[in-house]
């Protein structure tokens, strides 16, 4: 059996995509939803990956925004 194409990429077709969502998430994607959904997810995955390639390093952390907010609170309003 051939390797499945990566989920949420342009290489994936609607049928396998819906089957994979059902297997992973337990949520049924209706046939009439699959095409637009696959296109949207492909676009989102691609856009975020490109942005991350430009700026995310191994030192980045997912709590970056709370950290920024706390730093601003500590410095005070004038420097916010």
């Amino acid at each position: 059996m051939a390797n499945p194409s990566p989920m949420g990429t342009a290489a994936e077709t609607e049928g396998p995509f819906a089957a994979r969502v059902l297997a992973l998430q337990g949520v049924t994607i209706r046939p009439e939803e699959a095409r637009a959904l696959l296109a949207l997810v492909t676009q989102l995955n691609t856009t975020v990956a490109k942005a991350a390639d430009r700026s995310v390093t191994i030192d980045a952390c997912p709590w970056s925004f709370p950290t920024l907010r706390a730093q601003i609170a500590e410095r005070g309003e004038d420097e916010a």
Partner: protein
Amino acid sequence: MSAIHELGLVETANAIADGSITSEAATRTALDRLERLGPDYNAVMALDREGALAAARAVDVARAKGEDIGLIGGVPLAHKDLLYRAGRVCTGGSIIRRDFVPDTTASVLERLDGAGALDLGTLHLAEFAMSPTGFNAHYGHGRSPWNRDYGSGGSSSGSGAAVAARLVSGALGSDTGGSIRHPSAMCGVTGLKPTHGLVPLYGAMPLAPSLDTIGPLTRSAVDAARMLSVIAGPDVRDAATLSAPERDYEQGLTGDLRGVTIAVPQGYYRTTADAEILKLMDESLAVLREAGVRVVETTVPDMGTINALMQVVMTAEAAALHRKWLAERPEDYGAQVRARIIPGYALAATRYVEALMMRAEVARDWLKCAMDGADMVHVPTLAAPVPSIAETTEGSPEDIAIAIGRVTHCTRGISYLGLPSLSVPCGFTKNGLPAAFQLVGRPYGEPVLLRAGDAYQRRTDFHTRLPPGCGED
């Protein structure tokens, strides 16, 4: 003195405190109006008439004894039906939770209780807080007091309509991608989406916790400041608030904006805006200049990427929260809500984490470009006139998506950035519906936004205009 329903929140609090009116009279007026006019706008979910009147009488007795009745003592309010109060049904605008009775009370409601406010009941919202127009497949569309063929905006649809129609003087809403700002703009009231992490989310039904905020919808900036002073600040039940300042947000509302600089970013927010919206934006800037503001032009980074980052965070978190119900009870979700959630089931987990990792850097970059040293940014809340209900519910799915996308064009990216935004009514478009601008600030920059909003409202009367049929007592 004005009729009771015409009083703003601070005016009502002052009138009760000085004995000009009783809390019972204010509460009866609000209840009568909620019952009589609320159904016209589909603004109300449930009311507790007897409980509210009993609480009002207790405030009046306390005041007569000379006791401190609090910053909002005896003022009748009602809030979006996603804030839990122990023992009271909280539907979240859904069928699934139509009988859900929480055993805890939201921090924001506890804080309002502590300030003496009365809670008359719950207000309409979009299903699971997921529609920018106020559409709800189960409970009907929220309707604008200005014209019932138009939506009241969502997802805090009932909050916007109830304040605009003078049913209550203030209401809490929540905002994940614009859900305070849309109904504020579409109904002609003032709405504050606070900095993410300023107001505790504990006890609020979540949509996407990294983006969710709770804030006031009121007639004026000064009323919003009073409510924010009560609800903001640290809460150990919401770790995101632990660095939040506690302030009196009414301080500094002087009407004087000398020394304040407002940035007007060119590009994204203006190139797609309708001409009549741009004209209203420019007129509002002229008023702010009269108050002493210096206006500078700036730019914005790639908003397409920022909007994608927002959508990834929102859909991934919403998908996780709704997975069990969507798997077991898909028929209990409206089509528009389902469409907003299901992309989250196919996003790569790494994209979600990357979107969170980039958030601070993207926010810094946006502030550097769009604000460029200014105190705040001025952009439209809606870049187009308020759409009719038909425009956002009829036609092809693509047409509906475009119409809805226009509503969120100027709001959703700001939610990803986590920044505070004050929506201020600034006139009317040719269809007779209100328009508004947003003032966007730095994290915890609410004081200067409220100062500017208040200064604008001292020089204009858009926030005092009554929708047709809402003037009678």
